[in-house]
């Protein structure tokens, strides 16, 4: 299946060379890396903004910036992290790179559309970022653009909203491309029940991307239309309904959480069997749970709105449905732990990341039940408890899986192995910093500290100091991880084709892969998780 004499995708020279070769590529692997470089840059911007916010909050009163600057900062932090990192995140980078390989295909179904998706992503990102520097000042609405404030503020909301709209197109096209690829380009013999779980999670994600993203696109355009043309969609003063905005926004933005987390769960579902040397426990249950999360995830958006003034009957319906979505999520965790049971576990870096993921995801998940429950949500709504919860889910879930994927697939992507000892030390520091940063926020929230406030009462100082120190520890771990991986990329020693003894197709081709992945399309004769050395 492999041919060492052919140039790999990094060396391959097409019509154009150098930078132009990258900017005009339709190779899914290079496009995956284009996403990776741009997305990781935005992630570092978002992380820097987060660090600055934590510095401001180290003590009550003004430390570094004025209140308006702080408002703009948390808006840009949210926009960058949500729309530019975690939503496209794992799917755009690792989905692009590995989905066709895992299916035994040479590329995605629509390679040119794939490149267009990346350009739309960059265009949307530039528009979002330009909103900081144009018009009447950076947006201060938070990433949710809640009406009627987003209609009234004099800041540059329209540009930010339009940027998010363009980003939505990128997401829709990626979802469409992946779904078509899975329907049309699976290798001979690869039935639906022989697809790796990562591919299945991308399938579920693709449907959410296609069906939910247009809703937020229209909603954001409605904001722009109301601001520019005065059409009364959401402002009660001109006949609109602000709660309608929340309905429309969260109809997308809650499923968007599953756009973030489902591919992350797919990554974990690949790592755990590889390092347990066992087929994944409950393959079918994992597939059904992915599809169930994608489906039920459409009907839980109202749990963001329990205190909005929504009707009582809607509140209990949404609360009930929110509890239901916990079931397929728990199925996954049980299946991962059952896979570990009696496995020949190899304690290597990607495995540790997967364990870190389960730990923080469980804290995030259980705290989600607290805010999914009507009575308790009333107390913690819009407090730091919610900030802690979603950072445990979004950063702890998607972020940890992103780093897990980086450490799992780095040798395949670049053909270079990193220093695993340094990687483990970096992970330990990162993990500690993460929990020191975010866990105190649960307590601050339970004690009543509201989110998004520039200043706070003196009794909240201790928690904020601990949290800020945690941010320094976490960023230290992050820098160690980045430097370690970047150094590995420049090392001369080649990684073997299959450093982890993996069983899915990407481990059966050379590292880095050739332009078309396979010289001959493979014929699949078994399931994705069959290990010879059990």
């Amino acid at each position, binding site marked *: 299946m492999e041919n060492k004499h052919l140039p790999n995708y990094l060396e391959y020279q097409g019509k154009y060379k150098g930078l132009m070769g990258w900017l005009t590529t339709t190779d899914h692997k290079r496009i995956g890396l284009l996403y990776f470089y741009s997305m990781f840059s935005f992630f570092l911007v978002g992380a820097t903004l987060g660090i600055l916010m934590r510095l401001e909050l180290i003590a009550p009163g003004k430390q570094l910036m004025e209140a308006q600057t702080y408002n703009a900062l948390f808006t840009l932090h949210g926009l960058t992290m949500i729309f530019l990192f975690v939503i496209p995140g794992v799917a755009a980078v690792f989905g692009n790179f590995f989905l066709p390989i895992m299916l035994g295909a040479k590329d995605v179904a629509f390679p040119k559309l794939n490149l267009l998706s990346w350009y739309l992503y960059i265009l949307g990102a530039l528009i979002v970022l330009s909103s900081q520097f144009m018009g009447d000042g950076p947006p201060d609405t938070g990433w949710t653009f809640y009406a009627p404030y987003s209609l009234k503020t004099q800041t540059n909301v329209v540009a930010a909203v339009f940027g998010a709209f363009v980003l939505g197109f990128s997401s829709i096209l990626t979802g469409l491309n992946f779904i078509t690829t899975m329907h*049309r380009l699976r290798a001979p013999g690869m039935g639906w029940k022989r697809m790796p779980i990562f591919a299945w999670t991308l399938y579920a994600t693709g449907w959410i991307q296609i*069906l939910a993203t247009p809703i937020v696109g229209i909603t954001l355009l409605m904001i722009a239309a109301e601001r520019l043309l005065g059409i009364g969609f959401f402002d009660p003063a001109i006949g609109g309904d602000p*709660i309608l905005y929340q*309905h429309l926004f969260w*109809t997308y933005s809650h499923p968007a959480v599953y756009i973030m987390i489902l591919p992350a769960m797919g990554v974990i579902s690949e790592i755990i069997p590889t390092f347990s040397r066992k087929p994944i426990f409950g393959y079918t249950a994992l597939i059904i749970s992915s599809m169930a999360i994608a*489906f039920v995830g*459409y*009907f839980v958006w*109202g749990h963001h709105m329990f205190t909005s*003034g*929504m*009707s*009582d*009957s*809607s509140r209990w*319906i*949404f609360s009930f449905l929110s509890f239901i979505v916990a079931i397929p999520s728990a199925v996954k965790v049980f299946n991962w732990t059952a896979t570990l049971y009696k496995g020949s576990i190899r304690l290597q870096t990607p495995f540790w990341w997967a364990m870190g993921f389960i730990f923080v995801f469980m804290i995030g998940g259980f705290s989600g039940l607290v805010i999914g429950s009507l009575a308790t949500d009333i107390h913690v709504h819009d407090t730091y408890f919610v900030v802690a919860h979603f950072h445990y889910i979004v950063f702890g879930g998607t972020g940890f899986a992103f780093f897990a994927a980086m450490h799992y697939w780095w040798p395949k992507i670049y053909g270079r192995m990193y220093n695993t000892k340094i990687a483990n030390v970096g992970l330990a520091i990162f993990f500690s910093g993460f929990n020191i940063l975010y866990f105190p926020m649960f307590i601050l929230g339970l004690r009543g500290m509201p989110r998004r406030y520039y200043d706070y009462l003196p009794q909240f100082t201790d928690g904020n100091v601990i949290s800020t120190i945690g941010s320094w520890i976490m960023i230290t771990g992050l820098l160690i991880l980045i430097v370690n991986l970047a150094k590995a990329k420049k090392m001369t020693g080649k990684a073997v084709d299959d450093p982890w003894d993996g069983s899915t197709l990407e481990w059966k081709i050379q590292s880095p892969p050739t332009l078309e992945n396979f010289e001959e399309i493979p014929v699949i004769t078994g399931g994705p998780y069959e290990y010879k050395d059990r």
Partner: protein
Amino acid sequence: MSKEPNHISGYKDHLMILGVLILLTIITVAITQVELTALNTAAALFIAALKATLVLLYFMHLKFDQKVFLIMTVLVLILIAAVIGITVIDYIDRY
């Protein structure tokens, strides 16, 4: 990969559907002149749904394609109907 030959619609069919769509658009405008209160909106939505169905079936070839695509489309419509239905519960009960 499907080896079935693709169905090709003739110009005559396309023009006929286009004519029906234009007719329905005229009806949509005309019906606003009749005072039906809330039924005006219902009528406009019904005609819009009818037009969308025609576009899906003929211009997007759903009628001639494999049944699986029709099933997928119907499932998506059910999903959207459910989302709208849950939202409407709020409006019925809130006021």
